[in-house]
């Protein structure tokens, strides 16, 4: 204590790696999850650079090439209008991935603040917000989405809106649950007694603890929202033809199952691959972010 006059007590806290670094290390150890992340990246990149990966046009018809089986010329065959299936899958990925990503973003942007406010304020505000969430939950998801799309009109943006509304309650509930338990923590009580505003407490002290469970939820719901988007197109409510979209391509293939199996098999494989990869990444993240499973 020679020269220091500012702090009479020396704090010595062992400085380990931050939780984020630990989680990243645990995730990288999980080979399946890393592989799945790689698959997702490849699919994403091949959708982005679709025009560089194929010479065919996704929309232009070719009367001479109708319903051709997979060959060297058409890797995955052609559809009933003579369009190259591989090309349509690549371009279709753009729409499916957009639907998955933006719908998750939209529901998180609405649901998370609602959950934060409900959990932190409690009482009547909490009650009103959560009853409202119950109301949304009481509608069957797909019917709600179908209804919204037929009300708003068929377009990609409206599909995204329709899908995201149904999953807002999930985000609100999870956020609220974490907020409720974090609110009672000593450091939050301390911040409060030091006069920090509710907005500051929510942003700096509570939001960070919501992030880990949310990352997992986001990865898992990207896949379920892609499926929901594909389901809407499958029912004819997603994307207008001739734009390629995986669900719509499946619906097209349905009428040709007897003589052109590839039309209904490959779009499904694409959807499944994305869903599978996103689920495995989500599981990997959950294991990596949860200290209880990480230590095992």
């Amino acid at each position, binding site marked *: 204590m020679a020269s220091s006059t500012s702090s009479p007590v020396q704090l010595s806290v062992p400085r380990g790696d931050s939780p984020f670094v630990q989680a990243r290390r645990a995730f990288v150890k999980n080979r399946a999850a890393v592989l799945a992340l790689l698959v997702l990246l490849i699919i994403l990149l091949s959708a982005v650079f679709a025009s560089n990966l194929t010479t065919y046009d996704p929309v232009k018809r070719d009367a001479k090439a109708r319903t051709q089986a997979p060959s060297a010329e058409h890797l995955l065959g052609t559809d009933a209008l003579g369009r190259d299936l591989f090309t349509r899958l690549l371009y279709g990925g753009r729409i499916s991935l957009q639907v998955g990503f933006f719908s998750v973003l939209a529901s998180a942007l609405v649901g998370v603040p609602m959950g934060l406010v409900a959990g932190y304020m409690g009482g009547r505000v909490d009650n009103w917000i959560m009853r409202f969430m119950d109301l949304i939950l009481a509608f069957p998801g797909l*019917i709600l989405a179908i209804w919204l799309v*037929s009300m708003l009109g068929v377009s990609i943006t409206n599909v995204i809106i329709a899908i995201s509304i149904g999953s807002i309650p999930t985000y609100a509930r999870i956020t609220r649950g974490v907020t409720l338990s974090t609110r009672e923590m000593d450091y939050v009580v301390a911040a409060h007694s030091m006069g920090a505003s509710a907005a500051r407490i929510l942003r700096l002290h509570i939001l960070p603890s919501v992030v880990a469970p949310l990352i997992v939820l986001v990865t898992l719901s990207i896949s379920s929202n892609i499926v929901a988007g594909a389901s809407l197109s499958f029912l004819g409510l997603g994307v207008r033809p001739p734009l390629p979209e995986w669900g719509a391509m499946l619906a097209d293939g349905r009428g040709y*199952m007897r003589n052109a*199996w590839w039309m209904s098999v490959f779009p*499904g494989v694409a959807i499944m691959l994305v869903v599978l990869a996103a689920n495995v990444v989500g599981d990997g993240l959950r294991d990596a972010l949860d200290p209880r499973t990480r230590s095992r």
Partner: protein
Amino acid sequence: MQKYILRRLLISIPLILAIITIVFVMLRVAIPGDPVYTLAGETASPELIEAIRQKYGLDRPVWEQYFIFLGNAARGDLGNSLKFGEPVSSVLAKAFPFTVLLTVLSVGIGTGFGLLAGVITAVRRGSWIDRLSMLIVVFFNAFPTFWLGLILILVFSVGLRMLPVEGYSTWQHFVLPVITLSVGQTALIARLTRSSLLEILGGDYVRTARSKGLAERRIVLVHALKNSLIPIITVVGLSFAALLGGAVITESIFGLPGVGRLTIAAIADLDYPMIQGGVLLVAVSFVFVNLAVDVIYAVVDPRIHYE
């Protein structure tokens, strides 16, 4: 308990009322299109249009239509379907049994297999059977329902010619739809059971049971499984409620005339009374399933009391 059930039913009335009101208002205010034209055809004369409008009370102000609808609904009259010309309640009564049958069979079978797989994999944790089963579960978890349905048709109906493609006249028609829906349920329940059991099997009272020399089978099936049931019941309840709302996709792939397909068709046809009836049915089922889940909680876990 009876008092609790009664109170729960009472507080669910505002919820159902709110849903019905939202549907009612949105149908009339926000959806473009006029149901009268779907009924009379685009080329109908103005007189005919006006006559139909009057017959169904669509010429009155929205709030008046709303109170007439509420008054009738309270007496069990949901109005006549614009498309079928029959009472909505009797159209729903014809469709609901298909939906219930499909729901009970798929959730039942899926839960049964899921529990079995979950228990086996939890007990044999880390063994090849655990790893193989979990691989299969992850795989089927990712199978989109509509694609699974198509693949099953492709293999069993088109390829092997073992089962009919669509329709509902024989029991064979239900085999593929039930498989389509129960595969996902099995995967879901298996995963949940496994993780839930693994957590319980590490608990103190399981160690006590082991040290008392109880048979492992008894420990797992009686002590541990019973305590891991709560999250499983929650999820089964959610699947039940979701499927009762109509397995829209599965019903339309296999041509089953259930509630889901009916509601979708009603939305496309702007059949207002039919949509309202369908949504009401779904909301009421949702409330009852949730209540049933809470009651089952108390039966399974005596620590849970409702006052």
